[in-house]
């Protein structure tokens, strides 16, 4: 029940296109949903995050869409750039435990020039 399922495992997008990565969860106690970006040799870095009281959050070219009833959330990268090529992880943290993040399995994004 603490799993966060992420898809696709890998994604190839043309420059300027839209990249979409999806995550789904079961635990209704999750109340914070961040997306992390990881470049090779680096640790995960927070990209954008959302709480379940809103359905969408946008920061620049990055948007999280959140569907509470479906228990799904997704990351949209608009106007994808080669510099966006990285691994993206969704995560969730429940309100009824401490500060443990539950991560998805990651999506390797490649943006082709």
């Amino acid at each position, binding site marked *: 029940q603490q799993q966060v399922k992420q898809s696709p495992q890998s994604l190839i997008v043309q420059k300027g296109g839209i990249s979409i990565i999806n995550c789904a969860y079961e635990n209704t106690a999750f109340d914070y949903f961040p997306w992390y970006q990881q470049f090779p040799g*680096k*640790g995960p*870095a927070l990209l954008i995050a959302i709480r379940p009281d809103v359905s969408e959050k946008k920061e620049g070219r990055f948007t999280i869409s959140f569907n509470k009833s479906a228990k799904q959330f997704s990351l949209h990268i608009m106007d994808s750039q080669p510099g966006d090529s990285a691994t993206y992880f969704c995560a969730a943290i429940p309100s009824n435990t401490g*500060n443990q993040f539950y991560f998805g399995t990651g999506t390797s994004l490649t943006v082709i020039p």
Partner: protein
Amino acid sequence: EPEVTQTPSHQVTQMGQEVILRCVPISNHLYFYWYRQILGQKVEFLVSFYNNEISEKSEIFDDQFSVERPDGSNFTLKIRSTKLEDSAMYFCASSDTTRAGSYEQYFGPGTRLTVT
């Protein structure tokens, strides 16, 4: 920009040996974490640490593991009697607030542990 640092970047050890992975969290942060990522798998929580004691740990964090804040800047993960399956990337993270705040955890670049 302040960042979490980890040493070494790569550690090779023989099965049965003890290893200590070191982390320097961001200086004004109070909460510290260790995660691991087995190659090709997801990032998994190991332990969180606050006020010089473990605040939460996962099933992975058994008696083989221990954490310590030996001084005002370092945060260490000790793995006793390493096993082949301990081979993974180990990430340290820190945050300045917890449930009452932003939840944001800042991750270090990781230590790749290889057990042979």
